[in-house]
């Protein structure tokens, strides 16, 4: 466990060097700018608009960070041959992969939490009302990041950074359409196509589980059952991807 934590810490430091704080500062400035410009134009709906843009921007930027930084995380170690020095120590490849995953998730989750905190602070300052419901959306987005980072680590365990980024973006996009795919596949399609669609449906991550922004912007809290379900689903799905990724990475030739 200590070995995994050490790798995760090192990954955190590596991500921090990529000027994540700058993203936070830009996000904060951007959100303040949007709220100043948009609020008077929104005919009394400024608070909703700022909440929407804040939560959507935070989730999108954290996902983007996980894909962009994560897709080259393993590749850099292989390219610079630093992985050989790490592997010379008593550490298993699966532990190395898990450490990278934990570090990447912590970085993306911390960035997400920072951006949601900026949104909440701005809303509290402008309307003197703290939107506590945003914590539900934050927890669900953190759970979603468990899957996003697992997808990134899974693909980067066997392919190049460019292909990793492409496969991740495609998987996440398809994950948002999983329900539609299931609906169209099971309504009027041939039995063979219906079976194939059903298989793809269960294989894809069901990312709509983690989207409660629509509830939160209308002032409703996310229920504990949904949070528990989303957390358990994310843990199981991410666990499956990491297990598969570790199995592939164990067999990878570093030469």
């Amino acid at each position, binding site marked *: 466990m200590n070995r995994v934590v050490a790798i995760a810490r090192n990954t955190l430091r590596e991500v921090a060097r990529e000027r994540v704080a700058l993203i936070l500062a830009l996000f904060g400035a951007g959100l303040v700018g949007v709220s100043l410009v948009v609020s008077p134009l929104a005919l009394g709906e400024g608070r909703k608009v700022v909440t*929407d843009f804040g939560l959507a921007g935070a989730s999108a930027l954290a996902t983007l960070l996980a894909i962009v930084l994560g897709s080259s995380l393993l590749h850099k170690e292989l390219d610079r041959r630093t992985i050989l020095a790490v592997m010379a120590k008593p550490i298993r490849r699966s532990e190395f992969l898990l450490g990278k995953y934990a570090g990447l998730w912590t970085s993306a989750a911390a960035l997400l939490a920072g951006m949601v905190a900026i949104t909440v602070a701005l809303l509290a300052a402008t309307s003197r009302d703290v939107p506590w419901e945003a914590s539900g959306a934050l927890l669900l987005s953190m759970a979603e990041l468990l899957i996003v980072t697992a997808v990134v680590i899974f693909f980067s365990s066997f392919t190049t950074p460019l292909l990793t980024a492409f496969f991740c973006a495609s998987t996440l996009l398809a994950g948002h359409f999983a329900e539609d795919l299931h609906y169209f596949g099971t309504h009027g399609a041939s039995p063979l196509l219906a079976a194939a669609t059903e298989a793809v449906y269960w294989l894809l991550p069901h990312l709509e589980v983690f989207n409660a922004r629509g509830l939160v912007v209308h002032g409703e809290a996310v229920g504990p059952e949904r949070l528990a379900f989303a957390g358990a689903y994310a843990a199981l799905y991410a666990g499956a991807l990491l297990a598969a990724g570790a199995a592939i990475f164990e067999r990878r030739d570093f030469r």
Partner: protein
Amino acid sequence: MSLSAIPARWRVLAPFLAAAVLLAAAGAFQAALWPRIGRAPGEELLYFPSGLFARQASIGYETAAADVAWLRGIQYYGEHRLTDQKYVRIGHVMSVVTDLDPRFLAPYVFGAFVLAQELHRPDDGLALLEKGRRANPDSWLLAFETGFLHYVCRHDYESASRYFVRAARLPGHPEYVDRFAAFASQRAGNRGMAVLLWKRVLATGNQYMQEVARRELARLDAEERAR
């Protein structure tokens, strides 16, 4: 003249200068010609997608996409209010906004108000409110606005009274809804009731709705004086 004759500092700066000059030229070109060429009348918002497509394309960010469409709709209304006062696409835009975020109440209220009051299409306005009430059955606001349109636009006082009573039975309604529910049946067709309703719009509506309320109150006042 060979490139080596140019001082090194200028050679570094030259591409940036060229970029700045080209960018300025593009801006000047657009400023000079676009107003003359411009978009054809009615072309604006033609690209606006259907609600179903917009919902699919927003990949989990439907409510933020609804806000963008809402802001675009208000901008469209504001531009035409200052010019030709034709708002032919406002119904479509508000329909897209409400497809993206069915719980966003402002577009139902504002869209129905503009359709009924400015475009003189109260049935389309009532249809938008009906869509809103199906998605938000507990909203007193949408029931109250339905009653309002029945009263001031269709002069259907029986329906208006029914919707005011319905609004008064829904949770979270303010005190004035009870008063309108009580008065509506007694004062059906009464000018004083219409004045009260428009004064309520003046107190609670957005800036555009307040402008229409001022106009309607002035009209009712002029009618009263003419008698």
